[in-house]
């Protein structure tokens, strides 16, 4: 028997699983403190602690409990949503450049968001063009989430073929649909939504501004559903890495599991987009980093995605709040600004 007697491949320290897991936990525990401490007003960690325990001044308490804590927590959660959704989609489409925008989710959600503002105008007409806002903002999360899901459904339906779902077809169909939705969104905004440009622009850039406990409550059920979905998918996903016929020969019901993965990814992305608007970059970048760190083990990749996604979202948001304080840069912009050079660097290293 011809055997190769070279030494087994040793992983560098940073890539050993226990190290990574501790690293991830550390990130998740430490990062929120950043979010709570920094912002328009800088608080010391003692003040933050006091605010959390209810022992600080009323100002500190208000800043910590009413503004920063919900915002930071939501940041953590949407980071997880976008990162995991991107990870699933990259696996599903076998395209390392995929993320939720590819399914038209951001596009669908954006179009519905603009439509919500415009319709708000019609429902509550008046001399004041800003009168329509309460309607829009009230229903915005739900509506835009529905918009995102519809778009994903359309992409799925359009890319189905006799044999099932082809990853390339999915990507291309998604790109075309996303392009169309983007053009329609911009067009609608230009044509009908002139009064709301600034507000919508803020939303379209992906922002945590004004997020409250109510938003977190609305989001969490989807988070739970999504996480359960991801856990269920772990085993089928490993077989899905093989080519279609090979996976089927292992007994995998490919079409069914692809559909499940798509649903989970769409739900996580759409629910997050509904709350904060499209933040595409997290879904694109975080899975890449996770793969670099975690290697090929899917479970570790998944955990790293969760940790990194949460962390990066909060870091981006905090930076956005502090760099030009008291003006805010939305988390979508910061993550894109940070992400672009890093992403280019990652891509240049790829074979």
């Amino acid at each position, binding site marked *: 028997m011809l055997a190769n007697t070279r030494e087994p491949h040793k992983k560098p320290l940073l890539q050993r699983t226990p190290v990574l897991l501790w690293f991830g936990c550390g990130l998740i525990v430490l990062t929120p403190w950043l979010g709570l401490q920094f912002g328009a007003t800088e608080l010391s960690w003692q003040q933050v602690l006091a605010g959390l325990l209810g022992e600080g001044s009323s100002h500190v308490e208000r800043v910590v409990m009413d503004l920063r804590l919900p915002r930071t927590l939501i940041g953590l959660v949407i980071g997880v949503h976008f990162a995991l959704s991107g990870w699933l989609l990259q696996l599903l489409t076998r395209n390392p450049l995929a993320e939720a925008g590819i399914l038209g989710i951001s596009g669908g959600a954006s179009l519905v968001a603009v439509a919500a503002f415009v319709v708000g105008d019609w429902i509550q007409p008046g001399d004041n063009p800003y009168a329509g806002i309460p309607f829009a903002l009230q229903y915005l999360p739900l509506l835009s989430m529905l918009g995102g899901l519809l778009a994903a459904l359309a992409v799925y339906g359009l890319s189905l073929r006799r044999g099932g779902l082809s990853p390339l077809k999915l990507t291309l169909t998604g790109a075309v649909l996303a392009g169309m939705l983007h053009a329609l969104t911009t067009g609608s905004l230009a044509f009908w939504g002139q009064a709301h440009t600034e507000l919508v622009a803020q939303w379209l850039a992906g922002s945590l501004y004004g997020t409250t406990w109510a938003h977190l409550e609305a989001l969490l059920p989807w988070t739970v559903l999504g996480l359960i979905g991801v856990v269920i998918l772990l085993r089928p996903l490993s077989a899905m890495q093989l080519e279609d016929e090979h996976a089927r*020969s292992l*007994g995998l019901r490919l079409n069914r599991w692809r559909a499940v993965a798509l649903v989970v990814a769409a739900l996580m992305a759409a629910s997050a987009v509904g709350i904060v608007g499209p933040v595409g970059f997290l879904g694109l970048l975080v899975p890449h980093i996770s793969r670099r760190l975690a290697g090929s083990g899917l479970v570790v990749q998944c955990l790293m995605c969760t940790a990194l996604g949460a962390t990066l979202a909060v870091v981006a948001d905090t930076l956005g709040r502090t760099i030009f304080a008291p003006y805010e840069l939305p988390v979508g912009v910061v993550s894109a600004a940070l992400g672009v050079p890093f992403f280019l660097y990652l891509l240049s290293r790829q074979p």
Partner: protein
Amino acid sequence: MLRTDQLTLAYGNTDVVHELSLAIPAGGISCLVGPNGSGKSTLLKGLAGLIAPRQGEVLLEEQPLSLWSRNELALRLAMLPQKPIVPEGILVKDLVALGRFPHRKWWQRDGREDREASRQAMYMTGVEALAERPVASLSGGQQQRAWIAMALAQQTDILLLDEPTTYLDWGYQLEVLELLVELNQTRRLTVIMSLHDLNQAAQFADHVLVLEDGQVKAAGVPGQVITETLLAQVFRVRGAVTLNDEGRPYCIARGTAKGLHSA
């Protein structure tokens, strides 16, 4: 064990395999040979249950494949496609472990039994020492052995391989074929594979099926099937077939056979 009954397989609107009825003998090494486009790949996929027949049936243990669940089928048949795609960055041991997929429900994780099966599979194919290495970094022959290990870990009675040697260097081709013979003899694994090289088929197979235009032109022991007439008619080769010292035929090509085909 595995047979077909008036099987017709199609791609889109074109029939590739026409009303084929054949039987694969259990416990041996069967080889499908034939020119490009004769339907070898399609037939293999049909035998593995990966293509639904337009007409006719494939029967495993006298039960049509359509009545088997995907999972049950995966516990009986393992298939290795042509040029399989290597998942990015995957290590040999993880690739082999993928072969255990049908043995556990989707909510279960791999257990001791699975790890043992993987280890054995890697041992038998000689890739145990490569377990921690990325599959993409191995040589052609090693990669193929890793894929075979994955199919072995599946612990099936039947292994189907689509042109397992076509993309390998000569030495590696023989390495893989010898491995398959050994597995067939020690594990009683039924091997069904398509090969391009007639001489390899002659040397390693117990049973040869010659396909042409989706029909079986000849089937049987290599010595009976591989004849000069066959070479001329199906492969358009004018050659000489002699028996080597092991009683197996081998072919030497002298040139093309013209005028023996109508079109």
